[in-house]
């Protein structure tokens, strides 16, 4: 028996005796890690409408809808976001999210909370006019611009914080136009019992429209949903690869092997 084998054979005994217990803890699922440029390349090719399955996967009422409805609402919500982007840009005569925010009287802050990989928070909008852009995620993402091909792929000089700001601005626009905007006026019937009924908005409409709004303002060709992978990659390439797999499967494509 070799020295190494002998040591391995004794290991459980010594661990038991001297307290080196290997306690099992919750293990997160494992994914094969891919280079970020490959993943971005694949995701950028997905047409924004084809993101409907992923976009609705985070919707609390998703179980009540079928594929056809999801696709139709995806198209309508994206169109709604783009329409209001043009409207707002015309109104304020600028396409710069920071200038738009200023013109709309937004109160913007850039906190730097450390994040964990199970839920990475990018940005928040709080009614009536507060927006937080979480810079920890943004800075980690910006470091990836040095990787070959990334800068070209995501548009030269893309400002991530502006993209996040544009997304959050839509929620403010939505509040301003809540009587007429599609994301607030389109409702689904959850149940009815005689004269009692419960009609509800669908949260996913707002998020999809906010993506369409941000895409239009930033002039990018790909869906901003790919930022979920890009920004998580800075925390955990493995978790980002897991998200990439999910997105590709949702779009009916085969994820590339590592």
């Amino acid at each position, binding site marked *: 028996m070799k020295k190494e084998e002998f040591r391995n054979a004794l290991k459980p005994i010594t661990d038991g005796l001297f307290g080196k217990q290997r306690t099992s803890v919750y293990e997160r699922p494992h994914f094969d890690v891919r280079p970020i440029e490959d993943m971005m390349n694949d995701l950028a090719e997905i047409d924004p409408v084809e993101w409907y399955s992923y976009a609705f996967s*985070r919707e609390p009422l998703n*179980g009540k809808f079928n594929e056809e409805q999801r696709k139709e609402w995806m198209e309508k919500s994206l169109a709604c976001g783009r329409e209001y982007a043009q409207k707002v840009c015309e109104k304020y005569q600028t396409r710069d999210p920071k200038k738009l925010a200023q013109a709309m009287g937004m109160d913007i802050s850039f906190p730097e909370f450390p994040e964990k990989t*199970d839920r990475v928070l990018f*940005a928040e*909008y*709080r009614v009536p006019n507060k927006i937080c852009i979480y810079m920890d995620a943004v800075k980690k993402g910006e470091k990836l611009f040095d990787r070959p091909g990334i800068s070209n792929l995501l548009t030269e000089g893309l400002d991530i914080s502006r993209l996040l700001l544009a997304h959050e601005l839509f929620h403010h626009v939505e509040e301003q136009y809540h009587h007429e905007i599609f994301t607030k006026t389109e409702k689904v019937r959850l149940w009815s019992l005689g004269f009692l009924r*419960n009609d*509800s908005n669908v949260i996913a409409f707002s998020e999809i429209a906010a993506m369409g709004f941000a895409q239009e303002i930033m002039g990018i060709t790909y869906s901003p949903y790919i930022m979920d992978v890009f920004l998580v990659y800075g925390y955990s390439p493995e978790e980002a690869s897991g998200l990439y797999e999910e997105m590709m499967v949702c779009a009916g494509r085969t994820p590339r092997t590592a």
Partner: protein
Amino acid sequence: MEYIIGIILLISFFGLAYYCIKGHNLMIGFLLITLLWTILPIGGTLFASEAFLASNPILQFGKDNTLIAALNKIYQSAPEGWGTTLVNVCWGAWFGRVLMDTGIASTLIRKTVELGGDKPFVTVALLNIVTALIFTAMTGAGPVIAIGVIVLPILMSLGIPKSVALFTFMGSVASGIYLNPVNFAQYRAFFIKPEEMPEFTLGWYASHWGYAALVIMLVATTVLAAFYLKRAKTVHAWAAQTRSTASEQKNAPFYTLLLPIVPVILKIWLDFSVIGGFVIAGFLALFLCGRMSGTFKENCQLVNKLFYDGVVDTAPLVGFLLTLPMFNQVAAYASPYFKVILGNVMPKSEIVVCIVFAVLLCMGLFRGPMTLVGCGAATLGVLSNVASFSVPFLYAVFAIPTITVNIGSCITQSWVAWGLAYTKVESRDFLKLSIPNAYLTGVLQYVATFIMLGGLGAAWFL
């Protein structure tokens, strides 16, 4: 001399409270205090006055009450006695894993949300009820996290501020624990041995106080959440959810959604075995949800894996809970000394106990001297030995700071700590919401305790 020893014991009690509040390891803390409370009271018999020893037979060592027998009682019989409770904990943890693996728990949550839709208050109220029902059967950090990763993003996606979402979820988890048979068996073991007072069953407890405690906490949490929601501003967040949701997306058959409450109903209604209830409902869930469709070997592996995962969920508590009975036992030897010091100070009437505990509810926070899963075990040791109260009354008095305050409202609770990190809520923002809830709920529960469990007959005294 007994006064000096009493004072040292009292100082060590406050030292333990400080140790717990600082967040040190509870198991080691209780082991050390058990050792100290063994040495001081027993060693103190060499110096104590004749009159003191004569009035406390427990401290008279001799042929019938040998020192070795006393030590064996503390360090062997006491933790062994708690073993019966431990098996309940293990099976309960297995059942929790079954509900998660079969998708029953997540389906229940999703169907509830589909009833409420985008109306934050309606959805919060419905989710609170369902969460409480689920946690009448499930227990441990694993299941809370598993349900939390479904519930919290839903609440936040409805625009509910994250601190309100976290506070209301944790409050409803705690309210369910009031009827959880595993927690009941666990806390009951602090007061009496499993075989003692057979009439003090979950059914008796539930009908005399448990239902009321659950409803009070559930209603108070929901009403406060509504109040906070009315004042709070809607929030929209862009966040990437990276945890695998594969197991959360499958829908369990509709009729299986009743299974989570089967063990509790069997226990309360028929006083049927808790473990039997877990086994019946657990295997029914596995079969009805199609999780037992593999080969015999695969099915065995699945059941085994779920049991393993469940036990791992509860493992961090087991060491502490197996040390506590030693402490509970040794408190009996220390109590004569406490009586000398505190005999005239400790409250002896039920109304005073209720008022004092209601005022001092905040001392259940940070593993302080009111919570049984902290330093409160020491307070119980002192209180139960210097005054006489019925077991159900004493149970309720300590259950409130333990469940409402510690489990439902304190950042030292493992799953609350997880929730703070998951939702990025600042501790102080959570406590600003949870402490008012702890007081509102706690005070109402003490009123219920006095009305429903005050003045019980001699049969309920030890």
